[in-house]
């Protein structure tokens, strides 16, 4: 046996098992979040069918639903991302279960608050609630504003606690220099290899903490404004902070999902995914790019300094290099001629990085200032982010859930993911076609637009999109049920080998 093969064999047989309490907490979190996700998909379908003139919604109701859909989706997916990295590091590192359970309760409280404020109270300022929209001439009651802000702050506390716990657990074992792989930047390769999952979890949690803190500061200002209405703040500054928060956390969610791919895919391919200097540089660059890419949301704010606008394009373009040349090629090298036996989890990972790449390319086009001029706030925008979420990150989450459930209902899962892919791609295609017809986003109805081509395209593609989204939902429910029906309890599961180069030592 060659040295490489011997190392791989050693890595393969090393084995690692999570504490059953960790597994239980992760399953409860994930089933809850996927249920919330399905509920938010129902809200999304409702919006598209209303835009497609298939059902009637008053504008007040439509925008309240839109607000809940955006907040609920971003919250559920970001929470899912954090839980993924927490579970992965908790396999080997000592991590607090209490933090996860307390955070679970806090997130639930926050979600209940948001549901009450939006669907009952009618708060409809959009997920991003651009300052000063929530406070000016509102058609929603004052208490809904306060409830929304406080609910988001409660969720923010939970997110911050979980991410800081991840960072604490990693830092206490690896130290600051090693957790980010900086010891790989010297002349000699470190004697103790750094697991890829540790590096990526460190990057994700760091970016997530910075985004969450920015959001916390923003919502504290909003709370102050709510309590003292005469106070005035700068709209452009708060737009920057809101997108620094919102854009960062949804990006971090995707990268948390990639952490699962780095850690779990080697278990199926039996090829370790080793950290090297290139990987360290790529993920440290990703950390920087995540924090500056949000500027592309403000391209159409011409008052923003031009240098910052160009920096936004640089950061957006720059993020494509590590993402594709390192991570996506890494997935390719994991799978290519590996002799893998395809099951739901590795297939969902391959499908997810495919969706991430397709959505990412569409995002890059929109992040080009010259194109953004005619795509900003059209349906192109929800087209690209729904692509890398619905047929990207969400597929990773499902693959992760099937992995920790150790599900064996492969046939049912296959039907589920195939239905999701058909429904998901059909759904996002309708957004892209709408964007190509200059159809604006966030319109309760397109029928009053005095431009027949825009009104007709907006209505038609919304209806088709709603139907495709319904198909996607059927697939998602099937896939979730497949995981639950086919799960094996911890006591009956065979040992699951884990390559050491991928997970904690």
């Amino acid at each position, binding site marked *: 046996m060659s040295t490489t*093969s011997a190392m791989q064999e050693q890595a393969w047989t090393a084995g690692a098992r999570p504490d059953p309490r960790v597994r239980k907490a992760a399953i409860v979190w994930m089933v809850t979040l996927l249920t919330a996700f399905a509920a938010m998909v129902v809200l999304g379908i409702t919006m598209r069918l209303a835009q497609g003139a298939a059902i009637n919604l008053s*504008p007040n109701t439509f*925008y309240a639903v839109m607000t809940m859909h955006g907040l609920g989706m971003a919250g559920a997916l970001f929470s899912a991302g954090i839980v993924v990295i927490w579970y992965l590091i908790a396999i080997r590192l000592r991590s607090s279960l209490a933090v996860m359970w307390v955070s679970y309760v806090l997130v639930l409280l926050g979600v209940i608050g948001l549901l009450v404020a939006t669907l009952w109270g009618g708060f*409809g300022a*959009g997920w991003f609630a*651009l300052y*000063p*929209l929530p406070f*000016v*001439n509102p058609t929603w009651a004052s208490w809904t504003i306060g409830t929304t802000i406080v609910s988001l702050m409660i969720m923010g506390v939970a997110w911050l606690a979980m991410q800081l716990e991840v960072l604490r657990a990693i830092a206490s074992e690896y130290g600051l220099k090693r957790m980010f792989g900086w010891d790989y930047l010297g002349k000699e390769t470190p004697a103790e290899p750094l697991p890829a999952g540790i590096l990526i979890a460190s990057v994700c949690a760091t970016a997530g903490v910075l985004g969450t803190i920015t959001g916390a500061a923003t919502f504290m200002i909003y709370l102050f404004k709510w309590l003292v209405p005469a106070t005035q703040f700068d*709209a*452009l500054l708060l*737009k920057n902070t809101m997108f620094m928060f919102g854009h960062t956390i949804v990006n971090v969610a995707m990268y948390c999902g990639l952490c699962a791919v780095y850690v779990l895919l080697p278990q199926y*391919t039996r*090829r370790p995914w080793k950290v090297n200097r290139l990987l360290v540089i790529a993920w440290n660059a990703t950390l920087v790019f995540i924090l500056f890419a949000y500027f592309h949301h403000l391209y*159409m*704010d*011409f008052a923003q300094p*031009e240098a910052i606008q*160009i920096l936004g394009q640089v950061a957006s373009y720059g993020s*494509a*290099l590590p993402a594709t*040349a390192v991570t996506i*090629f890494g997935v*390719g*090298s994991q*799978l*290519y*001629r*590996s*002799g893998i036996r*395809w099951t739901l989890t590795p297939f969902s990972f*391959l*499908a997810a*990085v*495919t969706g991430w*790449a*397709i959505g990412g*390319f569409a995002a890059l*086009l929109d992040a*080009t*200032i*010259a*194109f953004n*001029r*005619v*795509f900003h*706030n*059209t349906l192109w925008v929800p087209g690209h982010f729904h692509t890398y979420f619905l047929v990207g990150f969400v597929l990773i989450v499902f693959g992760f859930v099937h992995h920790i459930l150790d599900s064996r209902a492969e046939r049912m899962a296959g039907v589920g993911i195939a239905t999701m892919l058909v429904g998901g791609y059909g759904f996002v295609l309708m957004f892209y076609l709408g964007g*190509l017809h*200059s159809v*604006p986003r*966030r*319109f*309760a109805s397109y029928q009053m*637009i005095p*431009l027949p*081509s*825009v009104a007709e*395209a907006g209505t038609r593609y919304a209806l088709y999109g709603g139907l495709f989204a319904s198909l996607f939902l059927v697939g998602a429910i099937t896939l979730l049920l497949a995981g639950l029906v086919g799960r094996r309890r911890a006591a009956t599961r065979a040992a699951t080998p884990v390559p050491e180069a991928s997970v904690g030592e």
Partner: protein
Amino acid sequence: MIQVVGYLALGAAIAIAAIAAFVWARARQAVPDGNAPVYRVRKYYAAALVVAMVGAFAWSLPLTPYDALASGPAVRVDVVGTMWSWKLKKDGDDSAGPLVLPVGTPIDFDVTSTDVTHAFGVYDEDGQLLGQTQAMPGYTNRLRLVFDEPGRFHVLCLEFCGVVHHLMLTEFTVR
């Protein structure tokens, strides 16, 4: 330009899906160190991506809409967004009639808002979005457009601004 983006996205999506299908099909083969070709391809991919990004930068930066900030002579139009209507007034024109702008002349729209953030999006009669900028309280954004053809042009609010956002519309004429 919009069609170019559509074709680029479609081409990229097909290429990415084809590569994924190729990897999926070849993954069942078990070859020791069989992934070496992937690393060989990566070098060329990374180099091609860098070249493509630099090229895209060089091509796209002159097309940013910010040059109007240091511009030459143009007809100036004050645009004020207020929940949920637009007021458009040509500089030096105090008449109360519909706004009429000259064809083939640079028009500078100085866009602001009195309350919340809106977005000033200009569409031609065929429903194509020609350009946009945000209308933000406390700031004035200048959008420069040149209308090569006469016709009726429509303004839609492109930033969500409350329950009547989708009805925040107006129009002007170019001749």
